[in-house]
């Protein structure tokens, strides 16, 4: 069992952006992600998660360092200024690595 070093990009944002982000991922060639519904609080106040309008989503993408930087860059340019969004990168060791490369990077 070989282990590969990859990046885990976590994005927390408003659920209203889910469709738009999925479209963006498609354009960027990202085919793997995991989404969980969330609630929380931040600079824009509390989001109780009790109706569509106050629900957050937490997106995880396992990817290479370059792809991670590319998505982060995209998010930064298109969403950061006006949307409730935070995101962070961390290091992970994955088991089946070929899953986490975009077609481009293969």
């Amino acid at each position: 069992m070989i282990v590969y070093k990859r990046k885990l990009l976590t994005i927390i944002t408003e659920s209203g952006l889910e469709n738009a982000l999925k479209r963006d991922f498609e354009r960027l060639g990202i085919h793997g992600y995991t989404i969980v519904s969330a609630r929380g609080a931040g600079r824009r106040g509390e989001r109780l998660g009790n109706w569509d309008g106050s629900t957050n989503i937490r997106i995880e993408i396992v990817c290479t360092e370059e792809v991670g930087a590319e998505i982060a860059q995209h998010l930064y340019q298109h969403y950061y200024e006006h949307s409730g969004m935070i995101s962070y990168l961390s290091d992970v060791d994955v088991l089946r690595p070929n899953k986490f490369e975009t077609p481009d990077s293969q």
Partner: protein
Amino acid sequence: MKDPIILFFVMGVLAGVMRSQLRLPSQIYDLLSIMLLLTIGLKGGVELAKQNLIELIPQIVVITSLGIILPLIAYPVLLHLGKFKRVDSASIAAHYGSVSVGTFAVAVSFLNAKGISYEQYMPLFVVLLEMPAIFIGILLARGISKETDWKEVSHEIFLGKGVVVLMGGLLIGWISGDEGIEPLKPLFFDQFKGILALFLLEMGLVTSAHLRSLKRYGLFILSFGLLMPLLGALMGSLIGGLLNLTPGGVTLLATLSASASYIAVPAAMRISVPEANPTLSLTASLGITFPFNVILGIPLYFWLSHQVIAFLN
């Protein structure tokens, strides 16, 4: 004999304000709101099938224009008197040009409780009034800019949850007719008021969270959230009266016109005018106008409608 559904709303607001542990999960909100939308759609569709659509065209044209005029009135007020940014003025204007189906449902329940009849095809106007203001809002914010991806915007507007379910309900009602939807009545018609009560309980909890941000935005937004619906109701009832609607129909049109969107418009604005501050517009529409309409507005618009009809004759 107070209509108890209002009390459910009040209960939700109080529970929220007092930070009680009462919480209704968003999945329940989804179920309740879809059931209300279907009920309203089905009822309207059945009646629509009985109408001569050609004869409705004048009403359709006039009422759609109402959805265009309202945001055009609100915008300069917000921009110049309210001193809001252009994008925020445009976004708030769009909220008030569009409608709230929840408010409409409460008005229907109000008329039912009083035994007042109305044009049963009114739900058609809910759909019609939901959308134009969004386009106006985007135009006000951006001008006829090339930046706007109109395809994506239209997709967001026409395929938003509310519009799809309401339209779907209308079409199903229309195709199936009274007899066809008979077996659906125990769920969608008989339970209407109970479902609406639960929905308002949840809306009370939702509203209470927006009440908190009220003080952050000051007096102007409070006044706007109270006066704009009054202006809307006045215009709606005048138009309803001129279109010769029944008193019940005039009340509903006044209510629609007075109501502010809190689902379709905010969703569309996030995508197409992301610079607009969503908390600001939701504080107005959900934190001020929705409770005002539900608790005080509707009986007032009922009274207003009678005055307007008397005045016009």
